[in-house]
């Protein structure tokens, strides 16, 4: 067992365990903060998949942006949200959750079945990529290549994203304005 494998199992264990905790926790704030841990360990997994730029973006945008946004929304919505949560029954396992658990478990079984049947490591294009040396090796520095590709091959989706961000900005500002003054 190499160090990389140990790190992979460690990080994926943290990611899945903290996601499970966030899913089962009754306390909203605790669930948000545990979600931080999930996102950080996912960034570590991206590094192990040799995508360091995506990992840094994940930390900057998700951890720095989205989670702070969620915390702000939680704080702005006042203490009534907490009261709603506290009213839920204190039992760990309740009958009402059973269909959702069943759905998720069956979906997981189906997905893993599909994954093992598909045998992703022996897909034709993956094997081609390995034989043509088109595979990213740990010593490669991909950031400059990503920048060049972003400005040449993927310029159209890049511009489309910029328009969409502008639309989302205007939409969010419009939605969260005060009523009546419009």
């Amino acid at each position, binding site marked *: 067992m*190499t160090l*990389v494998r140990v790190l*992979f199992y460690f990080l*994926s264990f943290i*990611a*899945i365990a903290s*996601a499970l905790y*966030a*899913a089962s926790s009754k306390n*909203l704030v605790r669930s948000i903060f545990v*979600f931080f841990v999930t996102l950080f360990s*996912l960034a570590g*997994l991206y590094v192990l*998949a*040799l*995508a360091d*730029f995506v990992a840094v973006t*994940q930390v900057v*945008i*998700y951890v720095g*942006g*989205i989670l702070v*946004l*969620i915390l*702000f929304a939680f704080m702005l*919505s*006042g203490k*009534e*949200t907490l009261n*709603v949560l506290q009213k839920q029954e204190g039992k760990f396992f309740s009958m*009402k*959750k059973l269909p*959702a*658990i069943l*759905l*998720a*478990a069956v*979906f*997981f079984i189906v*997905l*893993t079945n599909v*994954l093992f049947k598909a045998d*992703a*490591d022996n897909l034709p294009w*993956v094997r081609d*990529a390995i034989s043509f*040396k*088109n*595979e*990213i090796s740990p010593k490669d520095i*991909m950031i400059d*290549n*990503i920048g060049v*590709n*972003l400005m040449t091959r993927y310029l159209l989706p890049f511009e489309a994203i910029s328009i*969409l*961000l502008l639309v*989302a*900005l205007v939409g*969010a500002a419009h939605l969260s304005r005060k009523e009546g003054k419009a």
Partner: protein
Amino acid sequence: MITLTDFLVVSAALFCIGLYMTVSKRNAIQILIGIELILNAAILNLVAYGKYDKVNNSGQIFALFAIVLAAATTAVALAIILNVYRRYKTIDPNDINKLKD
């Protein structure tokens, strides 16, 4: 070395946890966290496959696009949640069952 299937299994587990959260939670913010988990599972898949594309970097670049789109989605969704809270004084999706008039 870590195989592709390992990443895909982790991503499948995260997807199912997100699915469970989205279906069962009674709080709009936690449902939003579930959706973020599902998005992250998809991004993990993109990144894992992107390792086998050194020239074009398609996997990594579309993972970046997905992260940016997730940020935009979250901003709009939180604005909607705040609006709903202002009108109904609750963010439990079960209680939100009236139209404007």
